[in-house]
């Protein structure tokens, strides 16, 4: 038995919003692979829960009329990886969420829960930052859509108003069209481990594959929340595709990131990994784009 004070179940977004307003102290429960574990550990014990796991209308992936990719917040990691739209346009996201936990965790874990947790190590988050994704929140007065970088406020805190739930992650066409992405997770073991530092890069090359037209790079566990490395990005955009520039680019990330010492890894190790991951990820993106170095 879980130490739960009360359980309220929502079967539609509307019901969830009403329950949020009715029970302001209740915790939202999606797949539960974080929340239920924290209840077991005592951290969130004795609380009221609003289960939104049974809201089927916010499950699934589609292309909207502007060819933006819409991922319902309750879509599981394994369904994202297996989805044809994801494989065709943003395979990097499917690969990133295929590194979460274990097969069973990827079946229960949802992209909405992963982002709403507000933790820096979420394997989906760095890739969503590097895709410049949008977050859709639905509340009493309707929908609001904000950039994922605004959604994260500080460690463990995201921008969800008292009447809202997250209903979708949206990747606009201009953010993925013509880009190739790659995510690298560095952890101590392959399965069931939390990222020591993770790096996700999206690259758009010129038609002749000789110039970086645009580069977006984001990290998990390089600061209190997932973050972009903007200095590194502005260094590389417009530069020629060659090994030297990629090396310089990877060193430049040290001006952006701010990892900490923790029991998992030291700051020095994380900085070292961050540079190496940036170098390897951008090179892989060039390769995926058909460029040569």
């Amino acid at each position, binding site marked *: 038995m*879980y130490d739960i004070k009360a359980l309220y179940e929502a079967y539609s977004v509307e019901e969830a919003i009403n329950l949020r307003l009715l029970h302001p102290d209740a915790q939202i429960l999606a797949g539960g692979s974080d929340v*239920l574990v924290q209840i*077991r*550990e005592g951290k969130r014990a004795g609380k009221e829960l609003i289960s939104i796991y049974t809201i089927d209308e916010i499950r699934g992936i589609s292309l909207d009329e502007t060819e933006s990719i819409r991922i319902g917040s309750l879509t599981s990691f394994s369904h994202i990886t297996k989805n044809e739209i994801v494989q065709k346009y943003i395979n990097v996201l499917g690969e990133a969420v295929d590194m979460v936990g274990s*097969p*069973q965790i990827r079946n*229960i874990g949802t992209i909405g829960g992963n982002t709403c947790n507000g933790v820096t190590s979420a394997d989906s988050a760095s890739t969503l930052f590097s895709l410049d994704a949008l977050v859709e929140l639905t509340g009493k007065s309707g929908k609001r859509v904000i950039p994922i970088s605004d959604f994260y406020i500080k460690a463990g805190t995201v921008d969800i108003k008292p009447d809202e739930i997250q209903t979708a992650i949206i990747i606009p066409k201009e953010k993925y069209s013509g880009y190739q992405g790659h995510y690298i997770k560095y952890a101590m073991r*392959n399965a069931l481990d939390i990222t020591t530092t993770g790096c996700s890069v999206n690259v758009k090359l010129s038609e002749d594959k000789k110039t970086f037209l645009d580069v977006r790079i984001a990290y998990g566990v390089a600061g209190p929340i997932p973050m972009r490395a903007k200095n590194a990005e502005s260094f590389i955009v417009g530069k020629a595709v060659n090994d030297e520039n990629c090396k310089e680019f990877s060193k430049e990330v040290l001006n952006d990131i701010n990892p900490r010492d923790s029991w998992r890894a030291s700051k020095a190790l994380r900085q070292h990994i961050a540079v190496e991951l940036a170098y390897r990820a951008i090179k892989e993106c060039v390769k995926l784009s058909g460029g040569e170095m």
Partner: protein
Amino acid sequence: MAQYKLVKFTLNGKEVEKMVDVRASLTDMLRNDYRMTSVKKGCEVGECGACNVLIDGECFNSCIYLAVWAEGKNIRTLEGLMSEDGELSDIQQAFIDEAAVQCGFCTPGVIMSAVEILESGRDYTDDELRKLLSGHLCRCTGYENILRAVRKTLDRRLGKVNV
């Protein structure tokens, strides 16, 4: 005050229903209400895979799944693999033949992951199988015999080796 809910679902092919405490995990319900004792209580935080069951054809750690979410679902446990005359299924027999069972605590969970793999109807490399089985901790076997049991059953089902 205790809060209860009627939960109806299909358990190993049979439609069942019972009033369940909403605080129960699926492991609690399967073990206590339905005596499905193959569903083991291991870590109870979704790490070891001992409580793994199939829900609508996908593997889930039942320890971090609310019992009330079982409503309307098709749930399968190791008990459902045995044939009517009490014979073991091919994957269970393979675990015995390959000495993939020692203490046996992780075995039901691993076998249910193997069932999902086998029923997908496609082939996998050994590396892919390792990844698909990575949600289970086994402290006895060192995993090699488990991998071999799954490999051999898969090859047999795909007709790659003669029975």
